[in-house]
């Protein structure tokens, strides 16, 4: 028995030293292989496959990377300026939802794997964590799933960074504009009940919303922040209902968004404007909410009459096996298309690609002429509403690919 334990201990030790040696060897080997291997374009990324960020990554980011690589490779690979084509080779890591892991993974991709391009992780925090490294190694940083009001500052700090999802102020302004128009039309009063999750997203939006609502002449008569673990919203909804407000705004994460919808239904809480946070733009939302979600508003939205958008959605469903979300997915996918078209025009030189992304005009799922303004995508659908089973992009009066908002919200059934 003791000799068995000694043997096992020996095996563990050998395994560990061999593990370290193997890591060393593998890294040497991959560098050596790269020197002679020029037939593929190496694209690397670290995404959260485990830990708290896995859900968000798996909804908005990873499926689009997979879809894009599959499509490009099925068409013979990435096109280069001389007309030749190179297949994409993917190097993928799991950052395990740890900031230190994602930083090291990007270092590994840049200096060990020496990939040609690096795609970003999911989330504002992680995109910022890798931004200095992406800039240092000269990689274009296509921050797809990152909402930040500081994008203009970041563009100055890291001139190869690109921001595709706007900032909190943009989303709040779009909502305020609609609310002002509805108040003038007499649909709603000037009271707002607002709740928010005490986490990055909720705090950021509520911080933008308070001054914006006030400046537009609204009074926030109920303003409550709840911890992310909250699952029972009966009290919050009751208090919000008693606040005398015609507008209910919740800057929530998916679990809260689903719970708020279900519990509002049970309580018969049906204000003229019912606006929720992340999750209301998931394709599964009507199913989870159990039936009619007509009139519910949230961030994002699509134009169901846009053929490009709808073609993207059906392709996503076909390749990935489920529909993309109705907010960030299409933006992430568009950023990849822009990368591919930049490579086709200027080749694999990272600085040239970054420059082309800044200045060029691209044909993407968002439109025939998608371009960035000061390295930021601005042609974003900021606000959407469930109308006839679709989560459509809306504005106060409609037009330009947006439908007119339909308020007051009808009853739950």
């Amino acid at each position: 028995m003791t000799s068995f334990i000694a043997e096992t201990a020996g095996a563990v030790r050998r395994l560990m030293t061999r593990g370290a040696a193997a890591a060393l060897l593998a890294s040497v080997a991959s560098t050596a292989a790269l020197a002679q291997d020029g037939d593929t374009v190496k694209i690397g990324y670290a995404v959260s496959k485990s830990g708290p960020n896995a859900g968000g990554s798996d909804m908005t980011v990873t499926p689009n990377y997979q879809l894009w690589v599959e499509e490009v490779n099925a068409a013979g690979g990435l096109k280069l300026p001389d007309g030749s084509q190179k297949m994409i080779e993917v190097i993928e890591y799991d950052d395990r939802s740890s900031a230190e892991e994602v930083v090291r993974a990007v270092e590994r991709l840049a200096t060990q794997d020496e990939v040609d391009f690096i795609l970003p992780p999911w989330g504002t925090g992680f995109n910022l964590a890798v931004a200095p490294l992406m800039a240092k190694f000269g990689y274009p940083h296509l921050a797809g799933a990152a909402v930040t009001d500081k994008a203009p500052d970041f563009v100055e700090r890291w001139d190869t960074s690109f921001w595709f999802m706007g900032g909190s102020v943009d989303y709040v302004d779009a909502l305020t504009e609609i609310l002002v128009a509805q108040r003038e039309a007499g649909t709603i009063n000037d009271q707002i009940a607002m709740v928010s999750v005490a986490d990055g997203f909720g705090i950021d939006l509520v911080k933008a919303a308070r001054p914006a609502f006030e400046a537009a002449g609204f009074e926030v008569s109920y303003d409550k922040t709840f911890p992310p673990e909250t699952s029972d919203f009966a009290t919050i909804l009751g208090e919000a209902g008693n606040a005398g407000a015609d507008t209910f705004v919740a800057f929530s994460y998916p679990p809260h968004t689903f719970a708020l919808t279900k519990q509002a239904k049970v309580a018969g809480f049906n204000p003229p404007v019912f606006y929720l946070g992340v999750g209301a733009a998931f394709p599964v939302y009507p199913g989870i909410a159990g039936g009619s979600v007509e009139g519910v508003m949230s961030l994002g939205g699509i134009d169901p009459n846009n053929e490009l958008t709808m073609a993207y959605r059906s392709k996503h469903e076909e390749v990935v096996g489920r529909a993309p979300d109705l907010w960030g997915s299409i933006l992430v996918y568009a950023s990849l298309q822009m990368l591919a078209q930049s490579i086709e025009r200027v080749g694999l030189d990272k600085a040239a690609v970054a420059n082309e992304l800044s200045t060029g005009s691209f044909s993407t799922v968002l439109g025939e002429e998608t371009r960035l303004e000061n390295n930021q995508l601005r042609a974003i659908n900021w606000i959407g509403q469930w109308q006839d089973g679709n989560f459509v992009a809306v504005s106060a009066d409609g037009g330009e690919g947006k439908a007119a908002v339909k308020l007051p919200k009808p009853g739950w059934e």
Partner: protein
Amino acid sequence: MKTPLAFALAAVVLAALAAAPLFIPDYWTGVLLGMTGYVALATAWALFSGPTRYVSLATVAFFGVGAYTVAVLNEVLPYPLVLLCAGGIGAAMALVVGLSTLRLAGVYFVIFTFGLAELVRQTVSWWEVNVTYTMGRYVFLPFEGRHIYWQLLALAAVTLLISWAIGRSRLGLALKAIGDDETVAAHAGINVTRIKLMLFVISATLITLVGAIQAPRWTYIEPSIVFNPTVSFMTLIMALLGGAMRLWGPLVGAVPLFLLFEWLSVSFPDHFSIILGLLFILIVFVMPQGVLAKLEDLRGRGKP
């Protein structure tokens, strides 16, 4: 080995490690950085938890406070002062926590320290949400990986030095007595609570500094990033693997485990957690006293 010789050898190794980033690619500097961070954490953790056998899961509470201090102060104070503040806050917090809890023993202490990490995280969140209205802070300090690595290396060296000095002092002897039997130690005239408190404060201050030094690496800081409980568990497991009762134990545990994690995440990104879990089970069954003890045990048995 004679002490001066050991010191000379340690100095040579330290110099070689310090020079390493000039010759190796950035990625390996990053690996060294992460490894040195955990060596410092595990050694600082073992400083208190090794001899007293009080298993603490509060590592990340102090680590996170250090990182948050840097995030809050990095734009208003010069960097050395920020580090000083971080150390001070860590020490003050450890003093308060220690005074109120070091009379707890056994599993109660473990549970309390685990709760403490969550308490600090929720308090910071509450403060940011209700008082400052910010969630997420930026750390823009002009440090690259190697600068952070050098700072961590110095801190790890200092931590080892402190651990060595304590081990040779009357304090170390008192600690060993406490670890063996607290009641007996108290009867032998040792002021048990004061000594435990002192050790806890030193250990926590060092842990806070590790967090403070590492913060600039992430640029963006929010509670869920810096109060990640994995840090506490990793530190604990590394120290236990090497042997928390010995000076070099935590280092011997941290280095191979860190390399193993790195290798696993490169080679088996999709099976990381499963393999890791199996390995932990193996470690606990095969080497409950740590690698160093096991080695001595094996060597001792080989002799007639």
